[in-house]
């Protein structure tokens, strides 16, 4: 079971949608609530970017790299959520964002490192 592939398409779709929906509540640096999640324009752009990267990774076969990148990025964002908000006066990362970012990072790490598809990372000639 290629979990990194499932991860890339599932989170690619969700974060793309969340990024687009975010623009309906905030198009400036001012913090607004997307349901219960604090967002602003920068936050929405990051959501949109990681979502589109997920879709791109799914179609180009770079899902393991995508999952690993997401694990690192969202791990950092989770820790940053505990700092004074909005972070550096720019991006809101606290509140309800913290558990969502943490779960995203944990699952990305598992999909990227723990359960790679058989043959991933080996030369094509050996893979048969």
């Amino acid at each position: 079971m290629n979990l990194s592939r499932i991860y890339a398409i599932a989170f690619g779709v969700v974060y793309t949608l969340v990024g687009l929906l975010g623009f309906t509540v905030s198009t400036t640096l001012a913090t607004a609530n997307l349901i219960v999640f604090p967002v602003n324009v920068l936050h929405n752009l990051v959501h949109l970017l990681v979502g589109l990267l997920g879709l791109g990774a799914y179609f180009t076969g770079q899902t393991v790299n995508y999952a690993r990148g997401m694990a690192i990025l969202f791990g950092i964002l989770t820790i940053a959520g505990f700092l004074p908000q909005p972070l550096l006066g720019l991006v809101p990362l606290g509140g309800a964002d913290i558990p969502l970012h943490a779960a995203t990072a944990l699952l990305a790490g598992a999909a990227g490192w723990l359960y790679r598809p058989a043959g991933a990372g080996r030369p094509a000639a050996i893979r048969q």
Partner: protein
Amino acid sequence: MIQLNAHSVAPVLDSQVPGGDHAGSIVALLYLPIVVMGLLLALEAGARAGVPAAMRLRSAFIDSSSSVRMAAFGMSISATIHLALAPSHWTEDHVRAVLFALDGIALATVAISSLLLRTSAWRAAAVALLSADVFAYFAYVVAGVEQFDTVGIATKLVELVVIGLVLVGSTHHVGSCGSWLRELVSHKANGGLLR
């Protein structure tokens, strides 16, 4: 000391939270991929650890077709929304809240069964359940108990799409209405029509 009055706070919260009383269902929906990924990771871990049940379920999942997986995901969306609606409806209508909860559990059960069982018995249950959902929603709207809203309409659209997927999948086995689709696909495989 500041005392919060529930009646004065609620309208403010409603105005700040897009989706109103459906906000909970939208938040739950955001967590659905996380729950699904968590379940798949647990299944993979169990299979790699040599747990027989996990190995059997894992191979059944891998053998499932794309249309079945999409139908299962659609049913999961509907189940999540119904389960999340149950608590918010409890205060105004106990019966409807219980129905939401039961419906959500039934849909989740059928969604999991569709992926893991090798029989097609789940298809009849899925069509019956989803048709009842769509019919009940419109009956409640006509009766004035519910109003049309974005979450409700979107959920019913997802359910209608899932009904279509389930029916197309079943005709694939029987070989009637789905035959034109198979023609198209076989042409593609031979480098024909869709090339």
